């Protein structure tokens, strides 16, 4: 919402500049370079989508056919996963809203203690790769051996199998639960930002008139944040719909397929590409519709009264309600952070993960195995880092160029540029992978089997994140400094490199780290694109899961989490500095 305001005010301020910019374009030596970037972006985003559509209408002899769609819409083995995906995603969205709305209200409007810590923990569940959470929850909530069930049996003197387990994570419900644990931060952020933007005068007026606090929250605050809640719901829906790891880990063992696991299974040899493409497109369509709905809701005026942030919102005193309020946070964060991280740490240091934590069960074997014996570790770590570095660097450079061209309106059709740079948000990772697979396993460019194809997937996936970040930074820098250097004869590229980039340095660094983090945890696209030589850490863990090697999985998970948190701390340092 803040960004939207920026756009309108910036557009107004820049109206007279537009003609000046247009004049400059005509004899700018960097025009071919700009065009190259436009073409590059278009190829990245559009080529995979083009092949996806074409392949879905083709049979093996490359003739036109509707057979794939007919099969999709008539075969129960495709319709059932679609239904499962839709209802579980809706359930995740709902659960997230129910949990995250009160949480964000408590943080924004009350004197809840320890807000800083709570926000940090919510950030931690935000950056935890969802499939790691799913791994951890197998160890916690497996029907009989899972530690929580073991505690439950021990506590009530029950015997496994004789009594029903407390929870069975291998179920649609278990999957919804674990997905929600790592998706609620999206809704939390949406609603918290919404609350920050709503002037608290209305709520204060209601309080002065003697309305009890809970009624104020329900009758005044809730309607005002409804758009944020809806938008949060849709984003949560979208997130869960596109996950691959969590359903593969939690739902497949219970013979439940979702759309993503179904697409994946179509890639078993011999891959049924036409069908995979035809199954992918509805997923893409749903995703586009959802995002469109979300932006419409967020863009609606007159619903929320958006003014500047009022200073000194009066915080409600919780008094005795602090206990249940903190209990809510304890349960949610306990389930998403404390228990999963705890069980991964425990598993990494024991021989038998379900055994008691005695001295005879302690071992460093898992660490020794992963770092000194398992010959895939080195290759996977190396691939993961090479991909992360390359995608982050290339992605950041591309995004700087594209954001510059579009924010400064350097090329004609900059709107399309902005569209292209945002579009990948709507492409589920596994759908993008199907598209890339189709595009780059045939001449002229055969990239399958190389890191390049995975690199393309990562860059494409992360463009929107970077574009948003750099775009916002660029809008904050007035173009007059660039204009000055242009008047002194610098080319556009030179002005960008020498003047603008240093000014938005923190934004650039943050973008780089964000793309890096996004790349090293990627699973849903990688799973279709990797080969033995191009394995990443995430895929290696997935392979280990198929043979239940939990010790090594836990070691790799901890390694990945440590790297991620170090990087997040770095981001915090840079953004803090930019604020000061």
């Amino acid at each position, binding site marked *: 919402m803040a960004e939207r305001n920026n756009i309108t005010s910036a557009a107004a301020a820049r109206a007279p500049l537009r003609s000046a910019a247009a004049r400059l374009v005509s004899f700018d030596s960097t025009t071919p370079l700009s065009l190259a970037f436009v073409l590059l972006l278009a190829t990245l985003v559009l080529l995979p989508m083009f092949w996806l559509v074409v392949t879905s209408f083709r049979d093996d002899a490359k003739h036109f056919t509707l057979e794939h769609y007919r099969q999709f819409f008539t075969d129960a*083995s495709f319709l059932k996963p679609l239904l499962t995906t839709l209802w579980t995603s809706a359930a995740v969205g709902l659960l997230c809203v129910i949990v995250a709305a009160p949480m964000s209200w408590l943080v924004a409007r009350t004197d809840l203690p320890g807000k800083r810590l709570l926000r940090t923990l919510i950030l931690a569940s935000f950056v935890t790769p969802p499939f790691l959470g799913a791994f951890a929850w197998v160890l916690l909530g*497996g*029907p*009989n*051996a*899972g530690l929580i069930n073991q505690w439950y049996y021990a506590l009530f003197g029950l*015997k*496994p*199998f004789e009594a029903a387990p407390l929870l069975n994570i*291998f179920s649609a419900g278990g999957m919804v639960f674990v997905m929600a644990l790592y998706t609620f931060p999206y809704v939390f952020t949406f609603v918290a930002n919404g609350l920050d933007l709503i002037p608290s005068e209305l709520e204060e007026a209601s309080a002065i008139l003697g309305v009890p606090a809970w009624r104020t929250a329900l009758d005044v605050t809730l309607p005002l944040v409804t758009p944020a809640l809806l938008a949060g719901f849709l984003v949560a829906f979208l997130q869960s719909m596109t996950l691959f790891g969590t359903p593969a880990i939690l739902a*497949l*063992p*219970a*013979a*439940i*397929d979702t759309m993503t*696991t*179904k697409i994946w*299974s179509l890639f*078993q*040899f*011999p*891959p049924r590409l036409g069908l995979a493409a035809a199954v992918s497109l509805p997923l893409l369509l749903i995703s586009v519709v959802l995002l469109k709905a979300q932006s419409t809701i967020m863009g609606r005026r007159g619903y929320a009264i958006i003014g500047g942030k009022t200073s000194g919102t009066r915080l409600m005193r919780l008094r005795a309600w602090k206990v249940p309020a903190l209990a809510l946070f304890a349960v949610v964060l306990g389930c998403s952070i404390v228990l999963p991280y705890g069980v991964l740490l425990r598993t990494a240091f024991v*021989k*038998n*993960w*379900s055994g008691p934590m005695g001295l005879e069960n302690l071992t460093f074997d898992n660490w020794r*195995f992963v770092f000194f*014996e*398992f*010959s*895939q570790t080195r*290759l996977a770590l190396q691939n993961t880092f090479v991909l992360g570095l390359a995608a982050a660097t290339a992605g950041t450079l591309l995004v700087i160029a594209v954001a510059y061209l579009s924010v400064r309106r350097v090329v004609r059709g900059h709107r399309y540029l902005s569209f292209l740079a945002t579009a990948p948000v709507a492409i589920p990772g596994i759908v993008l992978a199907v598209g890339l697979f189709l595009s780059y*396993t045939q001449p002229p460019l*055969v990239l*399958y*089997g190389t890191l390049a194809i995975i690199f393309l997937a990562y860059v494409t996936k992360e463009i929107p994140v970077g574009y948003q970040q750099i775009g916002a930074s660029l809008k904050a820098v007035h173009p007059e400094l660039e204009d000055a250097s242009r008047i002194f004869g610098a080319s556009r590229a030179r002005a960008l490199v020498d003047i603008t980039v240093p000014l938005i340095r923190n934004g650039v660094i943050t973008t780089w780290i964000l793309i890096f983090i996004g790349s090293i945890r990627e699973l849903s696209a990688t799973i279709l694109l990797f*080969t*033995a*030589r191009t394995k990443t850490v995430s895929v290696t863990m997935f*392979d*280990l899961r*198929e*043979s*239940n*090697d939990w010790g*090594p999985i836990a070691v790799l998970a901890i390694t990945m989490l440590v790297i991620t948190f170090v990087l997040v701390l770095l981001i915090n340092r840079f953004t803090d500095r930019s604020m000061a």
Partner: protein
Amino acid sequence: MNRCIVITVQVIAMMVAIAAAVRAQETTPTMVAAAAKEGKVVWYTSVDVKVAEAVAKAFRAEYPNIDVDVERSGSERVFQRINQEYQSGIHNVDVVNSSDASHFIYWKQQKWLASHTPPDVMRFPTQFKDPEGYFATWRATLSVMGYNTKLVDAKDAPTGYMDLLDPKWKGKLVKSHPGYSGTSLTGTYAIVKLLGWDYLEKLSKQGVLQLQSTTATPKSIASGERAVMVDGNEYNMFIEIDGKSPVKIIYPKEGTPFVTSPSAIFAEGPHPNAARVFENFLFTAKIQQLTVNEGGTRSLHPDVKDPPGRTPLSAIKLLGDDPTAMLPQIADIKKRYTTLFGS
């Protein structure tokens, strides 16, 4: 009478020809030197990852200048990856081992394999090696049933496949997937042949926990996640028992699927000499004994002894595998199975 003689002569001639073609290729110093120049060998295998790394470690100790890249996955996944790679013109694999023997027939038909007979294989029984030397059984295992002794009393334990349909096992079974595991596929084929699809359909209504690998199911009952295992590698059960896990093997009274797991060299692999050195090494009595001891597999090497405490093969009713007959049915088996149990 004359015809008989002609045929006999022809058969003898053929056998001589085959014998001539299948001459063992010893590891020579020149081969080792060439292999060292290649630097490493890439090995795709479906054996348990720790056993695979133990074999790789032994190889590196014997040939310090040749490294081993281990790529472990389920047999069907190994098959899928290699075929996908070859279709895309990627030649990465040197030596392959999979528990689905029909893969080797397919690859041989595709002419992707190199004919190579390790010296030790000359002494293997004939039914466990390809007549033209394209592959031989590196290891064998049984697809056994099993149970957790803390959760099930010995007297209540099932004795065969039919027992599993008893309502008391509902929600307590764990099974691997033939779409992932070659052992599971071979076992499923044998069960279907013996008991029909009807049996699997009934089994699918027992609330079976569906895992992927036959190396995963023994770990599942060992951890107490499930009480009874429908199928799993005998060798993983040995590993669990040696590690003092509370599990016991059941050799089903209907018969236990015997699953051979061949090894072969890909003709166009990037490290042809290292591949030959490694293939020879895999079949030596030393490594065969190592996989039997550490990995709990069965070996067809005449010099290898089963460690004490393991039921000898002769005491188990076996269901032999028939890769040639199974090959054309694989897609159908996987599809029907997936309809019943999910992907």
